[in-house]
């Protein structure tokens, strides 16, 4: 019987013929932490008596969640992580470099690699054909030290994509639609594997946005094949040598197949307080929004800022709606400056944050007041997510976010040319 992408990668990484349901010990290529999970990883690493990360993998530390540090407690956590990185020779990504998942995609993730990160959105790198999986601090400490981890080979759900997005509809709308369809636990312990003819026209940044939110359906991984689109992205990053083609076997076995015609999708919004609480944007038009956030590892890439700038060019944010922009990385921010997007956004009344996670998880840079509504291009809208359990978070594409920033209420971007 043929193998799914998950089975193929985990077979290679475990040196066995892995099948869904098997438990394998697999070699890890990249193990990383960020600044809110990393301190516990470092303490567990030291508590276990480990001295150095395994030579067989790359270990990396990202300072992105509280970047720059808003208080002395987090400044001390950063210091602990910098010292660990310098002592062990691990890669250190400083405050201002950007969100771990974007930098992993830009410079570290390779098709076929096994990536373990102490952050649930590690799944983002599945957009490049890497088996990338979030774990906790202790699991990552052990993976860093041993160069391997144990994994249950997941069953896979195949998502077959056809057609092309209509105007005003984006990758974010697709993944919100899919999560709404299968639910927040629709893929728990399983892999979401994407395929179909639509992929030939789907860019790596779009794939990263989709893979990023696989975890919001409970999935262990959101995997795309590695194809010509992957090759040209890696070439553009100066990483030609990291490319290898990778796809599931035609005879692979799936627990479920879901067919989606992109042409039939429309702008989607997730309503508070769960990601699967989705509705077409047109159905909740008019909901007042006090803050719009365009940024994060889900919706803060160059194409998101381009879409936002196109809508906001020559327009102003609504006077009662704050517009907060957090580019996903330094490279994204530089490219957005070079393309004039940042100037356009500033003219429209936007606040530009340094590259990083920004207000996504509610620890600084744009926490919400009681009763306020935020429309964000991020990936989570759980109660309390943006710093206040008395506030409400809606999730949407950069286009819906930008259009809503102008009107001050949830707006279908197709009404807005």
């Amino acid at each position, binding site marked *: 019987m043929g193998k799914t992408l998950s089975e193929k990668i985990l077979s290679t990484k475990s040196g066995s013929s892995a099948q869904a349901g098997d438990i394998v010990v697999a070699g890890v290529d990249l193990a990383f932490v960020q600044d809110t999970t990393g301190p516990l990883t470092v303490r567990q690493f030291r508590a276990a008596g480990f001295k150095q990360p395994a030579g067989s993998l790359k270990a990396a530390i990202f300072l992105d969640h509280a970047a720059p540090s808003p208080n002395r407690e987090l400044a001390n956590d950063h210091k602990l992580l910098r010292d660990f990185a310098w002592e062990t020779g691990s890669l250190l990504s400083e405050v201002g470099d950007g969100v771990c998942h974007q930098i992993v995609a830009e410079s570290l993730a390779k098709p076929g690699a096994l990536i373990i990160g*102490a952050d649930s959105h590690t799944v983002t790198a599945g957009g490049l054909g890497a088996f990338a999986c979030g774990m906790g601090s202790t*699991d990552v400490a052990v993976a860093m030290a041993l160069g391997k981890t144990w994994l249950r080979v997941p069953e896979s759900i195949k998502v077959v994509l056809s057609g092309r997005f209509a105007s005003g509809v984006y990758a974010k709308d697709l993944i919100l639609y899919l999560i709404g369809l299968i639910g927040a636990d629709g893929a728990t312990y399983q892999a979401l594997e994407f395929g179909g003819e639509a992929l030939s026209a789907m860019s790596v940044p779009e794939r990263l946005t989709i893979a990023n939110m696989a975890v919001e359906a409970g999935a262990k991984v959101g995997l795309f094949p590695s194809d010509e689109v992957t090759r040209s992205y890696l070439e553009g990053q100066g990483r030609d040598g990291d490319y290898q083609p990778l796809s599931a076997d035609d005879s692979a076995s799936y627990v479920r197949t879901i067919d989606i015609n992109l042409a039939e999708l429309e702008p989607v919004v997730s309503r508070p307080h769960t990601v699967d609480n989705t509705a077409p944007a047109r159905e909740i038009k008019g909901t007042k929004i006090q803050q719009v956030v365009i940024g994060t590892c889900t919706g803060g890439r160059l194409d998101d800022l381009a879409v936002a700038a196109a809508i906001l060019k020559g327009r102003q944010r609504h006077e009662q709606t704050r517009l907060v922009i957090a580019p996903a990385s330094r490279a994204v921010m530089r490219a957005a400056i070079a393309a004039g997007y940042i100037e356009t956004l500033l003219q429209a009344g936007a606040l530009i944050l340094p590259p990083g996670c920004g207000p996504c998880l509610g620890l600084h840079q744009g926490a919400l007041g009681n009763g306020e509504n935020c429309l964000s291009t991020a990936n989570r809208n759980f109660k309390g997510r943006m710093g206040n359990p008395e506030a409400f978070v809606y999730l949407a594409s950069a286009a819906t976010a930008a259009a809503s920033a102008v009107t001050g209420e949830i707006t279908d971007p197709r009404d807005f040319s």
Partner: protein
Amino acid sequence: MFKGRAFKFGDGISTDQIIPGRFAHLRSNLPELAKHAMEDADPSFVSRVKPGDFIVAGANFGLGSSREHAPLVIKMAGVKAILAKSVARIFFRNAINLGLPVLICDTDKINDGDELEIDLEAGSILDITNGVKLGFGKIPEIMLRILDDGGLLAYLEKHGDLKL
């Protein structure tokens, strides 16, 4: 054998409710962090829970973030086991890695405040208050061994390596 009271929660309790991101600055000060366990799901939880009690939840408990601090603050609050209809993947692994049992069972049969007796070895849950007996789902062998040894670091100290 554990004996304690049930603290009942509904479906879809996220890690943001278990330990909100706004307390990220306390993650290197665990006793302070643990004072906020379950705060956005039930602000009175920490003041009411006693060592030996249980969290009894609905479906998809612990969805969201990879923060191991979520099961960690629950454990520090004195909770001896989490019972749920289902549990999110990363949370499940994190709890086991900390030696905190997660038991998958039909929690609809348990009411808030019920006295429970749990026998991990026999695989049984007895609701003393209403007399209902429940079994719980099997977990993979490697997780059972990690749990038996008291967590992933204790397991590694004993075995020296990951063993299937």
